[in-house]
């Protein structure tokens, strides 16, 4: 789960990290008022769940409250990489002497938490990682003991931070790690982390993502969810225990299992079509879940045909077939449906579906070919 910059900053502040305290504005009036309150140069920053705000014009500097108002007027409502800007974060300008990058993520191959830092702050860290990897300093936290103070200091020295600023950097790095662990984050990032002209450390921008599987123990994090940033269908799917991701194509997919669902999308593409979604209906593919899946898929007006791909395993193909028939009795589907049913008792299942007038085939490739034709 992603949150906005201003929310991430709040979380970091709660864990003792010095952040640039700004105000959220949803109207130009509020932005102007915020700028007036700060009484200084401010930055007006679009709050959207995507990167590249700067390049897209979603961040503006304003020297006066009036300029802040103008900037907010321009930025609010803007579309950045498909995200509509509903809020801006107005923050006082900072006296930047030096910029750093500091981030905490999972290192999957090492199965450990990784703390990363770079003296090349304020720029895209992925670009730094690709082009000047030697500029990134890394430390793996111990999986049982955590991120040691000495590791944080070691990073600071490796970044060339002046001895009298090392303790401050190390404290922030340790707190960022603690925040990541305590809040079950999947990403905690400060970019840039700055040293001000007066020698203070300050987190000037913050980014956090959270582990969906751990939200049950973080109601306060769950409360940060911004419905405006989420696809309504995806939210509805999650409530039904269905994994759903909206895509731009025309062929709706209903599949049991995440891997098979991706493979099904790939097959559609291979046969010249474009998938309209990823959808994992779950292992059992019960009538109820399939009915819900139909509802989710048909909510997309772009969908011109539906491919149901079920591999009957523990749940037998004939049972899945009756489930699909029952689901079609509950939900009206106006586009063509191609069912691919394989596995245990698949033949009986296909026969039952054919009886009901559905196109039921044996292989995934055949099904993909047919559904692409049907959608054309």
């Amino acid at each position: 789960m992603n949150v906005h910059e201003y929310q991430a900053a709040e979380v970091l502040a709660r864990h003792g990290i010095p952040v640039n305290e700004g105000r959220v504005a949803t109207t130009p009036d509020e932005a102007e008022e915020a700028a007036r309150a700060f009484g200084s140069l401010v930055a007006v920053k679009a709050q959207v769940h995507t990167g590249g705000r700067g390049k897209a014009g979603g961040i503006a500097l304003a020297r006066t409250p009036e300029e802040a108002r103008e900037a907010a007027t321009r930025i609010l409502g803007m579309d950045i990489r498909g995200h509509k800007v509903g809020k801006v974060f107005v923050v006082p300008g900072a006296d930047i002497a030096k910029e750093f990058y500091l981030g905490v993520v999972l290192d999957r191959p090492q199965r450990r938490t990784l703390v990363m830092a770079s003296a090349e702050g304020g720029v895209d860290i992925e670009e730094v990682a690709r082009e000047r990897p030697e500029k990134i300093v890394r430390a793996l936290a111990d999986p049982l003991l955590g991120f040691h103070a000495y590791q944080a200091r070691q990073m600071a020295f490796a970044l060339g931070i002046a001895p009298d600023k090392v303790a401050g950097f190390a404290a922030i790095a340790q707190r960022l790690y603690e925040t990541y662990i305590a809040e079950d984050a999947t990403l905690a990032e400060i970019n840039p982390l700055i040293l001000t002209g007066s020698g203070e450390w300050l987190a000037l921008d913050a980014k956090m993502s959270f582990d969906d599987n751990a939200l049950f123990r973080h109601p306060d994090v769950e409360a940060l969810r911004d419905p405006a940033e989420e696809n309504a269908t995806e939210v509805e799917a999650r409530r039904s225990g269905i994994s759903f991701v909206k895509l731009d194509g025309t062929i709706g997919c209903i599949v049991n299992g995440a891997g098979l669902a991706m493979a099904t999308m790939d097959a559609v593409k291979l046969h010249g079509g474009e998938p309209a979604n990823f959808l994992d209906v779950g292992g059992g593919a019960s009538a109820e879940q399939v009915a819900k899946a139909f509802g989710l898929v048909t909510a997309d007006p772009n969908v011109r045909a539906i491919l149901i791909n079920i591999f009957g395993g523990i749940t037998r193909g004939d049972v899945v077939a009756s489930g699909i028939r029952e689901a079609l009795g509950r939900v009206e589907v106006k586009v063509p449906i191609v069912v691919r049913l394989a596995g245990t008792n698949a033949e009986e299942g296909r026969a039952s579906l054919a009886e009901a007038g559905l196109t039921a085939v044996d292989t995934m490739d055949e099904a993909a070919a047919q559904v692409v034709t049907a959608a054309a």
Partner: protein
Amino acid sequence: MSILIDRETRLLVQGITGREGSFHTTQMVEYGTNVVAGVTPGGRGKTVAGVPVFDTVADAVGETGANASIIYVPARFAPDAVYEAVDAGIPFVVCITEGIPVSDMVPVAAYVKAKGARLLGPNCPGLITPGEAKVGIMPGSIHTPGPVGLVSRSGTLTYEVVDALTRAGLGQSTAVGIGGDPVIGTSFVDALRLFQDDPKTEAIVVIGEIGGSDEEDAARFIAEHVTKPVAGFIAGQTAPPGKRMGHAGAIISGGTGTAAEKIAALEGAGVRVAESPSQVPGLLREAMAG
């Protein structure tokens, strides 16, 4: 022969009286798996599919000599179940449970490794040595004994490929589902090492998906250490970046973990990578023919 499990495996089921646990215990017993014990706190004296239930893993191991465990307990309790199994001396633990927070799995994975035990999963379908033992939730009927070792990050996609292999007359030595989470116990490389060393495995199938770099690590390992023919498939070529595709680990982040990279890495290591699961048996036969 086979890897990890066979007819000598003495299986313990943790969470045996739950809905999932009891259903799959019955399925495993019917398949012929030597399920010797189950654990559910407070369940002592009960039986499930003829299998005796104990209160604790220590009791179950003491009474039955269980040497492998499969976990069907809810995500909040699954890490504790892994610790209980490993601390009771069980050397091989399969965790089916989906939805365990990553921050819980990081210490679990480190602990299991430090203890010299092996974890498969979590969020995996388990594994099967056809005709000998099924330790998982896969449909046993689609498998048949044979020379192909299969390792996969997914569930039903694995069944799809196994089914295709079986229909093509290519039986399996062992089929292993390593799971779709970001932090898992047994990696592709771990499974590949076992298959390479297993005399009965003559060829290997790798089924990957987007996210992480486990397939790239596998490619490096294959290039350096695997002499047996390998075919593969990578799911998620059409997946968009930044979106979790069902599995917690199936996400392209920071531009890495794409299917294209993984396919390129595997092909670079001499693996024949299929465009569609149905092509896997044919590619594997080609590879086996040399």
